[in-house]
């Protein structure tokens, strides 16, 4: 086992353990904290893949913005009562159904993955020569311009929705 494999193994095991810890905590704030550790480990996995830009964005966007908002909402809602509710509520059949569908999809996708596929245009050397940020920027603004714009439109809709909900008179 090489060092890289060992590091990957560490991240893989930790990501699994941390996600389990995250969903089994009674206290939602503790759950969010385990999620923070989980995100840091996912960022570590990105660094292992030479995708340092994605790793930085993972921390800035997920840990720095989205998770802080989670914490904010949980703290403001004051979920003291929810903590004492038993773990399985009456919605559990829906959860099991969704879980089964998800597993089916995941298995069918995993079976399609080639372990050592033909090398594409973006090899590690090509990306290193051009720089991480530039490669992503070029692909994002040429090949994937339409999906990118659609995503930004969805975000815009969310922003307008928040304003409409929060403001009394528009």
């Amino acid at each position, binding site marked *: 086992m090489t060092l890289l494999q060992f590091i990957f193994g560490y991240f893989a095991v930790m990501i699994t353990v941390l996600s389990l810890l995250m969903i089994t905590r009674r*206290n939602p*704030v*503790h759950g969010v*904290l385990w999620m*923070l550790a989980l995100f840091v480990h996912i960022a570590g996995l990105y660094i292992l893949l030479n995708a*340092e*830009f994605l*790793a*930085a*964005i993972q*921390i*800035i966007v997920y*840990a*720095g*913005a989205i998770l*802080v908002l989670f*914490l*904010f909402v949980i*703290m*403001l809602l004051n979920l003291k009562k929810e903590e004492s509710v038993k773990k399985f509520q009456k919605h559990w059949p829906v959860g099991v159904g969704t879980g089964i569908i998800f597993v089916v999809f995941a298995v069918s996708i995993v079976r399609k993955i080639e372990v050592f596929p033909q090398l594409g245009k973006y090899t590690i050397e090509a990306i290193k020569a051009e*720089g*991480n*940020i530039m490669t992503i920027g070029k692909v994002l603004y040429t090949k994937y311009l339409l999906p990118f714009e659609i995503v930004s439109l969805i975000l815009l809709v969310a922003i307008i929705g928040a304003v409409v909900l929060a403001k009394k008179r528009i």
Partner: protein
Amino acid sequence: MFLFIIKIVTVVLVFLTHVAVGVYAERKLMGHMQARLGPMRVGWHGVLQVIADGIKLFFKEDIIPANSDKPIFYMAPILGVLAAVGSIAVIPLWDNFSIANLNVGILYILALSSVGAYSIILAGWSSNSKYSFLGALRSSAQVISYEISMGLSLVGVMMLAGSANLSDIVRAQSGLWFVVPQIIAFFVFVVSAIAETNRTPFDLPEAESELVAGYFTEYSGMRWGLFMMAEYVGMIIMSSMAAVCFLGGWSGPEFWFFSYVPDVIWFILKVYAFMFFYIWLRATLPRYRYDQLMGLGWKLFIPLALANIVLTGLVKLL
């Protein structure tokens, strides 16, 4: 490997020594600005005051509130120091000298500063006290808002330099320091940096007249000391970022005997100037009101930084 560890330890120790220097300088300078003397008793003109304070903090009783969330209460100040000290890694002190020469240096610093926000939120929440909690909520909103404007102000710098690597940014400024073409971004960055490190006039999370001490009201002894350490390291990091991104980092005048001065001296001088500015502001300005602070961030600085990005892009295209 061994040399690398020595390098890391040395750089971190130098930065941490500057925390002590910063605390002393702040008390002394503020004293003189307000026509007082500042610390005078311990050592010559109070130079040993910081050491005395450190020893005192170290041996003070570590009081932990009975209803606090203990693991998080223990962890919060450590997380803060970790995030602040971790940022030291990418600061280039002189040409080809930084612990890690990352290609995403700016983003790394932004990422760690967003992790640092957790220490404040968690400290406030786990203390189980109203003052701490209010301070934490204020702070989290403030830090997130100003992080956006700070990140956006640095985008202009990245566009001009064509890189997010801090060393490359300094080299791109060999002709002209970015403070000239990026004067708007510089203004936004400096104000956001003050808000980001929770310093006066934006120190609402610890506004003592309304919140006792804000998020670290319940902390005592060395845990409180760790929060102070994180704050001062954060100040030094922000000063270094301002020096690196806008004031040409380690570069200095290259004529007469100035060309013999080591590069690191220029860098240190720029960082000191910023630290002085921080202290000067604290001694001069009163505190903002909270809604004014948020309004300023969202309605003035974020649009200004966005306008700066558009302007930089236009100029670069033409």
